[in-house]
């Protein structure tokens, strides 16, 4: 088979496997990060000052450090402490911690955007705290939260590329390997960029569309 865009079929097969790891890592980042992030969001508006302070410290810690450093700490640092850390595990944990902090902050904002009166109204109906959250606040916050959440998924996908640095064989890593073999960096990295674009653009587009819809509904 002829080379497509200067890359052999074997290269394309490798890229495809890299792409699937990129998607996998993104999903882990989103799902696990979302789970932890939801906890962070709740903790950030908790009635307990200590819980609020600890969650804020966590957010500041993650949002103040480059993701690359976080990966280094996990990948190089933890084994020294006696914890074996393959690249995949380090990348998954790093993406989870990273996404949780940012998603937690985004969602906290959305929870706080639900008018105070709604919380009070729920209290007046003698709903328990979890009932108030589940039945009254979350359904309203969910609508506000959807566009920025989809928007942040783009950040997750793009940031998985950093896992290449610790040797995780996702798309950027495969790109580096192909470049080492072909010495065609310009072409290779443009192809890689195009593949990322194909993953991210639909999410960006969707996020924008949802946001416009929400703005119209609010008017």
């Amino acid at each position, binding site marked *: 088979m002829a080379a497509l865009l200067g890359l052999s079929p074997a290269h394309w097969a490798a890229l495809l496997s890299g792409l699937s790891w990129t998607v996998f890592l993104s999903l882990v980042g989103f799902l696990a990060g979302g789970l932890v992030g939801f906890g962070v969001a709740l903790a950030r508006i908790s009635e307990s000052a200590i819980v609020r302070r600890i969650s804020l410290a966590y957010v500041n810690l993650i949002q103040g450090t*480059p993701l690359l450093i976080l990966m280094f700490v996990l990948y190089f640092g933890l084994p020294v*402490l006696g914890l074996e850390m393959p690249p995949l595990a380090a990348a998954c944990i790093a993406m989870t911690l990273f996404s949780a902090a940012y998603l937690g902050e985004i969602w906290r904002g959305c929870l706080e955007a639900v008018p105070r009166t709604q919380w009070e109204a729920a209290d007046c109906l003698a709903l328990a705290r979890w009932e108030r959250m589940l039945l009254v606040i979350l359904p309203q916050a969910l609508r506000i939260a959807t566009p920025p959440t989809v928007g942040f998924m783009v950040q997750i996908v793009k940031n998985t590329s950093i896992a290449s640095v610790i040797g995780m064989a996702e798309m*950027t890593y495969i790109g580096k390997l192909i470049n080492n073999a072909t010495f065609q960096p310009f072409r290779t990295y443009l192809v890689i960029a195009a593949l990322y674009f194909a993953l991210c653009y639909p999410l960006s587009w969707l996020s924008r569309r949802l946001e416009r819809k929400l703005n119209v509904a609010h008017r």
Partner: protein
Amino acid sequence: MNYSFDFSFLRDYWPMLAEGLVLTVQLALMATVLGFLLGTACAVASTSRSRILRGLVGLYVEIIRNTPLLVQLFVVFFGLSSLGLKFSATTSAVIGLTINIGAYSSEIIRAGIESIHRGQVEAGDCLALSRWQVLAAIVLPTAIEKVYPALASQYVLLMLGTSIASQISAEELTAAASRIQSDTFRPFEVFLVVAALYIALSFLMRGMFWALGQFAFTRRRRLGTPL
């Protein structure tokens, strides 16, 4: 788990860390200033009447926002040099980071421009101000004031993003850390120290942006309205 921390590497290696820190600050500063200018120009272009100009800016913004910074830096550093455009690692980092943050700045500033009431522009027109005067004296100052917090957090993210420049061998803080840890085999301590430096830097940046905002937006300072 029985681990005794050892930070003694700091004694020998602190100059290396300091040099890396300086380059990190320089990269962040240059990309912020240049990216702000580029972003402002693009935001203005994206509100222009020319469809071609609007389309070009839109394309640039979408491409940058939907691809990883790491790959962008690879294209600039490895890609362009293979085409004969050779830049040093540091220059490539500045170019790549500027192009990257320019796109984000453009989107944010454009949102600010679009939020300005049409009557403001009309009032400027009616006072016989030229199109550029309206832009410079009325539209941009109010737009940027409105989106200043969003811009500031984007620039803090950019500062953290400079760590990725280590991957094209720019000798900034993260690169220095990698070198030190491979010399000392003290990765945990080295990266903890560097993480602390980044956190300190991001707090410092937020403080500086706050101070700059107080200085630049006189009205906010005088009336005490939060930014």
